[in-house]
């Protein structure tokens, strides 16, 4: 597929269905998109103590995300410098050192090589092989923002703050609820026979599917009101590196709206201290609360508020998930539950329950989503169907503009529209197509982009 043509088609809201299953497209994504984008690895609350680690991937690259003995967060390529064996094979745990099971090369949790059997006999000691200068490899960039640990494989990557741009404003609404940050549970991990982009697009802006795909969840009384209208009256925003959907809340008062979706008073008090006047204006005066969203390319968030017991008031939950592609047609989903570390215990438990009922491997929303996405992926493989241009023109005007005017006086960064529209899906896919149309300078494998292990220094954007 000609990538310049792809950019043009996507810009016009015409999506060749084959982009959801063609191996050649996925090869381009690996080479030109995932090699350059910031990728989420872990939340710092997953590794609270020195030595705590989790093992995560960026596509096929395996990384150890570890807190060293000086409490610095390190991201280390999980590959012995000798013969390439994984030095860590557990998904999570606590270790001061990682020892390769093959020849026992041993690395401190800073990445420094400290054990090399028969160093003198086999290598002639330090003059023969510089053990003291050998570390596990670190990705070119690591950054932590709002407790979320990201890495980029691109030596020329912009900072995480630049990459997020205006989306940081909205990210705070999910992840900045008190001075001590969030804590997470998870992830749940499962594999779906679906292209990764479909979920990313859906979370970025598809409020249009909610009334139909998720009608069953409304019918069983999980919510206090019909979802369809609140969804249609919601705003769709895109700012910087991401975009999302919102629900319209019933009042123009911040405290009342926060209580309406189930935040207890003490949490609202803390949130008051954390959010800017504009952020509070978004939820108060303007009356929009974030729901689903996506940070380009493949990290999505969701915020919703079901009932967790009969006749009770609703309780909100926050979750984020990574759509980790395994191939053009398979995605591993990692889904976390997140909650304010300072929230009362009863709230943490109810909110967790709300999450499990709605999203994740058993979530009642998610179940129906995945069925749709699996079907799209499977159908798009056809000789005929792969050529079909799927329609993502909703909200486009006849003259190439938009059907409706953007919201005036929108309190947040970026642009926003009320009502249904595929503005964000087009935005996301446009970025995607532009990435594919941008060849890398030289061969990926020939670059010296990686660096020696060093701590994640760039604590940013609180």
């Amino acid at each position, binding site marked *: 597929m000609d990538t310049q043509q792809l950019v043009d088609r996507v810009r016009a809201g015409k999506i060749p269905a084959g982009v959801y299953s063609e191996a050649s497209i996925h090869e381009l994504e690996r080479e030109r998109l995932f090699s350059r984008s910031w990728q989420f690895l872990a939340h710092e609350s997953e590794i609270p103590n020195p030595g705590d680690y989790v093992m995560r991937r960026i596509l096929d690259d395996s990384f150890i995300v570890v807190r060293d003995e000086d409490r610095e967060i390190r991201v280390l390529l999980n590959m012995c410098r000798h013969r390439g064996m994984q030095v860590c094979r557990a998904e999570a745990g606590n270790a001061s050192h990682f020892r390769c099971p093959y020849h026992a090369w041993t690395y401190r949790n800073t990445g420094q090589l400290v054990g090399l059997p028969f160093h003198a006999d086999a290598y002639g000691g330090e003059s023969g092989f510089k053990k003291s200068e050998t570390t596990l490899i670190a990705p070119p960039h690591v950054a932590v923002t709002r407790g979320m640990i990201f890495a980029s494989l691109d030596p020329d990557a912009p900072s995480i703050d630049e990459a997020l741009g205006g989306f940081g404003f909205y990210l705070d609404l999910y992840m900045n609820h008190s001075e001590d940050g969030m804590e997470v549970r998870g992830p749940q991990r499962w594999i779906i026979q679906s292209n990764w982009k479909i979920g990313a697009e859906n979370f970025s802006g598809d409020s249009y599917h909610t009334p139909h795909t998720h009608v*069953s969840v409304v019918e069983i009384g999980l919510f206090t009101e019909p979802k369809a209208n609140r969804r249609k009256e919601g705003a769709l925003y895109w700012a910087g590196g991401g975009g999302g959907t919102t629900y319209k809340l019933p009042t123009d008062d911040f405290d009342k709206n926060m209580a309406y979706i189930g935040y207890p008073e003490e949490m609202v008090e803390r949130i008051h201290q954390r959010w800017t006047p504009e952020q509070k204006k978004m939820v108060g005066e303007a009356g929009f609360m974030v729901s689903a969203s996506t940070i380009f390319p493949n990290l999505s968030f969701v915020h919703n508020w079901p009932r967790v017991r009969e006749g009770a008031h609703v309780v909100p939950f926050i979750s984020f998930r990574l759509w980790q592609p395994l191939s053009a047609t398979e995605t591993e989903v990692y889904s976390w539950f997140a909650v304010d570390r300072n929230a009362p215990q009863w709230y943490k438990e109810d909110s967790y329950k709300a999450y499990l*009922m709605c999203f994740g491997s058993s979530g009642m929303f998610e179940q*129906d989503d995945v069925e749709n996405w699996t079907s799209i992926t499977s159908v798009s493989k056809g000789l005929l169907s792969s050529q079909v241009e799927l329609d993502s023109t909703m909200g486009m005007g006849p003259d190439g503009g938009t059907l409706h005017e953007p919201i005036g006086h929108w309190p947040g960064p970026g642009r926003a529209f009320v009502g249904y529209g595929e503005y964000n899906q087009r935005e996301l896919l446009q970025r995607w197509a532009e990435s594919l149309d941008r060849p890398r300078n030289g061969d990926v494998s020939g670059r010296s982009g990686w660096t020696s292990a060093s701590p994640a220094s760039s604590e940013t954007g609180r």
Partner: protein
Amino acid sequence: MSDPDSGCQHGAIELHYEVTTFLASEAALLDNGEYTEWLALMTEDILYRMPVRVTKVRDESEVGGMDHFDEDFYSLTKRVLRLSGDHAWTEDPPSRTRRFVTNVRVLEGRSGDELIAHSYLLVFRSRLDVRPPEWVSAERRDVLRRVDDVWRLARRDITVDEAVLRTQNLAIFL
């Protein structure tokens, strides 16, 4: 009753028979999509839990605070209501499932009305036409309670054998 010699004792065989019959009937209800009837087997204080299994080095705990299921009677009822309605798209057309329940062991419960039943479960799940079949393998540790002279499920702890599930969702019960 966990003592292998006790299998011959009077009452143990009958009890084992009752438990295997209960588990087989329960599996049949789920395989036949009779969710409301399945829900009727639960006590109102049911706890139905399936922790996420995490790959750990030997001697470190394999569970890390996240679950696939952590259900009570309310949430199970909602799930059953949904599957019994007309708009749970993911199960319409329904999956064809077959639950193989084996290795049943009956242990003493905390009171005379209760017993503990361990069993192995293998679920075969086929969706639509050419999709590859999906499997879920697990052990279940159940507490059965005798209520009005029939056995009910009061607690189920599911130990799944995969850290990364290879089934598209848990729109099925285990």
